[in-house]
């Protein structure tokens, strides 16, 4: 079965020189694509996690009584929303990267303690996190004061009200926007290409630099994979939204 598959694409490459799906029949190239896919997914999932953590913590800090703290969070949000994520990546990796200490595993090489993948995770998490803070805050603010009041009138403490009433409701409001932002994050992981993170785009470019005949197939693969990843993400989030939907509320 697998032989048939590889044979088909090998033949296709011979008959149609521009459609050389080399990664479907050559182990080394397949390995590259596979590795790239793993990096893309790893990067997406890790940044997703950290950006949501940043979002929750940041939204909480924005409700703080300390003005300085609030301004600080606000400054962070504005800086990261208002500048290109691509330049942020470069700034983190090249500019901040040179300040981080290095270590030497073998006595010769100087290896920075934060790799390019590490910087990509830091940079992209902060980028998406800035959006998440505002998304969560908007969700929390959408919970009516009167509902919070009712909870207090029943004798729930502030913390109880927050945990049992405000968060469950606010989170549901935040979901569609969160969904959007996380999709955007997945798409933005491609920009880690610029700091040589070996993700899918990087690997594809490597392949078509070596085998120009594989250019179109690799591009097609990129399209399919990213639309697929985004599709899975949207599908999953929609399912979750459905599950959390409150019967009788909304349409």
């Amino acid at each position, binding site marked *: 079965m697998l032989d048939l598959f590889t044979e088909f694409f090998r033949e296709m490459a011979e008959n149609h020189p521009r459609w050389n799906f080399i990664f479907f029949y050559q182990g080394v190239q397949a390995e590259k694509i596979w590795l790239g896919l793993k990096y893309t997914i790893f990067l997406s999932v890790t940044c997703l996690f950290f950006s949501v953590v940043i979002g929750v913590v940041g939204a909480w800090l924005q409700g703080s009584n300390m003005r300085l703290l609030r301004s600080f969070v606000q400054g962070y949000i504005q800086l990261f929303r208002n500048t290109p994520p691509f330049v942020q990546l470069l700034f983190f990796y090249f500019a901040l990267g040179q300040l981080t200490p290095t270590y030497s595993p073998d006595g010769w090489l100087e290896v920075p303690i934060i790799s390019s993948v590490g910087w990509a995770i830091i940079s992209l998490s902060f980028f998406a996190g800035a959006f998440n803070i505002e998304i969560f805050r908007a969700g929390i603010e959408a919970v009516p004061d009167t509902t919070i009041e009712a909870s207090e009138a029943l004798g729930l403490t502030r913390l109880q009200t927050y945990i049992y009433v405000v968060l469950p409701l606010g989170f549901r409001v935040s979901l569609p926007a969160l969904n959007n932002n996380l999709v955007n994050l997945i798409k933005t992981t491609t920009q880690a290409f610029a700091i040589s993170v070996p993700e899918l785009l990087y690997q594809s470019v490597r392949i078509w630099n070596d085998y120009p005949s594989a250019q179109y197939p690799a591009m097609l693969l990129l399209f399919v994979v990213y639309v697929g990843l985004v599709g899975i993400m949207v599908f999953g989030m929609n399912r979750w939204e459905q599950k959390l939907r409150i*019967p009788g*509320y909304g349409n």
Partner: protein
Amino acid sequence: MTTSAPWTPDQPIVSLRDVYKSFGSLEVLKGINIDIMKGEVICIIGPSGSGKSTLIRCINALNDIQKGSIKVEGQEVHTDKLNKLELRKKIGMVFQQYNLFPHKTALQNVMMAPLLVLKEDKASTEKRARELLAKVRLADKEDAYPGELSGGQQQRVAIARSLAMQPDIMLFDEVTAALDPETVKEVLLTIKELAAEGMTCILVTHEMGFAREVADHIYFTDRGVIVEHGAPETFFDNAQDERTKLFLSQIL
């Protein structure tokens, strides 16, 4: 100011003395005095913006006051030493907009506060919650979410939710104002039954017929002061003050 002798049922259960309240420069309450005995049902009526809602919200400390004293079962409400939790266990409140928790079923709404605040065990709370829902004639709706209920049904769940805390006093803040005319009746019936059982009730309402039927005492407020008060019969049939007369002539 100091804690006096423990409260006994022959003293007013709620007592307001010279209460002043303002929002910024806007004075809402200007010297309110009310005494309510245990088991009494009082209705506060008056034109909108006359401070009725603010008045009862001050009783369970949802609003603070600038001057005066509010005592509930002998305890001063507006002091720094107030234990809000203890106060709110004694006082239940029902709102105009029901304010149910939309992500919880009717039964969960009723059970939430006893579980979280009173730390009661789940089995007995559930049992009591079922009884309360039956009492407000919603036994068949316990698994429905607020969004699936009519306004009147939601309001009755809200009443059950407050009763689950076994309060001594119930506050009703224009609880029928947001309801369709046909569902008003079922809510009023529930309140009437509650009053008949001897619950101390303080109502802000626009339902004059209901006030007349159920209240032991009527207070008429306008522009932050109590203009006139009395038993329903004398109040409605024999109002003295011009403002009261004008109001009643417009509304009846």
